[in-house]
């Protein structure tokens, strides 16, 4: 539960304080959960798909500032994208969009992109 002193970019702080697309989608077309409570990070991503595009996306995160900000940024990047484009959103892309993450927090950026991919894949498997 202890971390070395960290510093976040303005974008990370903005997404941490004002996370976009928070919530659940009860009738989601796809949903993905990554992480677990024991490790201290859980992110759920829900998507609606319309005409092959991500027409709605929501997330919930239990985790540190970086985990919350990357989840928020991931949903922002995903919204309106095709499924293929969604699958192409990498961890690095999310970190870049946030103007970078501290070294010690790079692993957190994994969660959201992975949850998004899981949600897309769930949708693809069903359709």
């Amino acid at each position, binding site marked *: *539960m*202890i*971390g*070395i*002193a960290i510093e976040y970019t303005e974008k990370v*702080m903005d997404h*941490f*304080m004002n*996370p976009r697309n*928070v919530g*659940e989608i009860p009738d989601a077309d796809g949903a993905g*959960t990554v992480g677990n*409570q*024991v*490790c*201290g*990070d*859980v*992110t*759920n991503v829900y998507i609606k798909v319309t005409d092959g595009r991500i027409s709605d996306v929501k*997330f*919930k*995160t*239990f*985790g*540190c*500032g970086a*985990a*919350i900000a990357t989840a928020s940024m991931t949903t922002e990047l995903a919204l309106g994208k095709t499924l293929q484009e969604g699958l192409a959103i990498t961890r690095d892309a999310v970190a870049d969009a946030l103007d970078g993450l501290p070294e*010690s927090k790079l692993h957190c950026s994994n969660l959201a992109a992975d949850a998004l991919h899981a949600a897309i894949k769930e949708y693809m498997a069903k359709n």
Partner: protein
Amino acid sequence: MKRIYLDHAATTAVDREVVQTMIPYFAETFGNASSLHSFGRDAMHALGAARQTVADALGAETGEIFFTSGGTESDNLALKGVETGHIITSLIEHPAILNTCRYLENHGCDVTYLPVDSGGLVDPGNIESAIRNDTKIISIMHANNEIGTIQPIAEIGTIARDNGVLFHTDAVQSFGKTETDLQKMNIDMLSLSSHKIYGPKGVGALYVRDGTEIEPLMHGGGHESGLRSGTENVAGIVGFAKAASLAIERFESDTRHLTNLREMLINGVMDTIDDVHLNGHPTKRLPNNVNLRFDFVEGEAMLLHLDLRGIAVSTGSACSSASKDPSHVLLAIGLAPENIHGSIRFTLGRENTSEDIEYVLGVLPEIVGKLRAISPLVSKGSSRGSSSG
């Protein structure tokens, strides 16, 4: 922005009076205390007076006080200075003790790490039964840095004495906040750190009862009666001594003040936020320690929100900086990792006011509510998503 420091277990601001006391020892009375000339003698006098002050603060003799570079060095010196053999300690010691024990395990020592109960207490009975023929030292901290639990030191000291085993206690967090009686508690060695008691960083002391044989950790010019070589940090030691004397002087008022604020904070949080639990012991607790577990939220995110409101807290022991594992202390009191992640430590200090606590109580429910609102752990439709405050 208002800034409220509630992380006094990590470190404290140096008292203004202490800073003033130190300043002449940088550029004026700057001599090396070992030098024969007047510059040296002035430094030697300052050092002698500081040693007397710290000895008085502990009820010790000056010959029993050895200045070090801090709590970590004191702990290392106490354990490594003792002849190889069996060591008894607890699972909730500070890393300065635990990692020293790990090191000693690789160098011919055998270590018993005793468990603690859900309040963080060591059972003196367990200590008694752990003693072996080759047990050399028992090291149990006076008060824990994360949860503030105060151990039954007097009982442990008696057991050590009765069994002819040395007793060391890490009093880094307890000094000035709960009573220490070297004689009644049968303490043979005791670690202090200046920066936890409104003194400068980089200074500490080890009390070593007269007649206790220990080996130095650092070799050199034979300072500190040969137990700790290295030119004495006169300004730092003078500041530390001043801080120690202020701690004794203000003991009654400090503890009363801190206890009031502590109760105000605990009760205030409990009244306004659901699903919060107090980590540690309900009563055998440092007057300045509040360690709370907030269900469904992650501690570092809380810390960040509080920081943005100017409030400084900790998610564990700031001293163990490199690690991101769940706190070994919270694990030892029986918490599951998933519950540990939402724990926040507030440690109060002399300069905090009830307005500070009111401010914290004002912003906390909103922060917890915000994080719970985005937490996937809050079950849908549960009333727990938002705070009741």
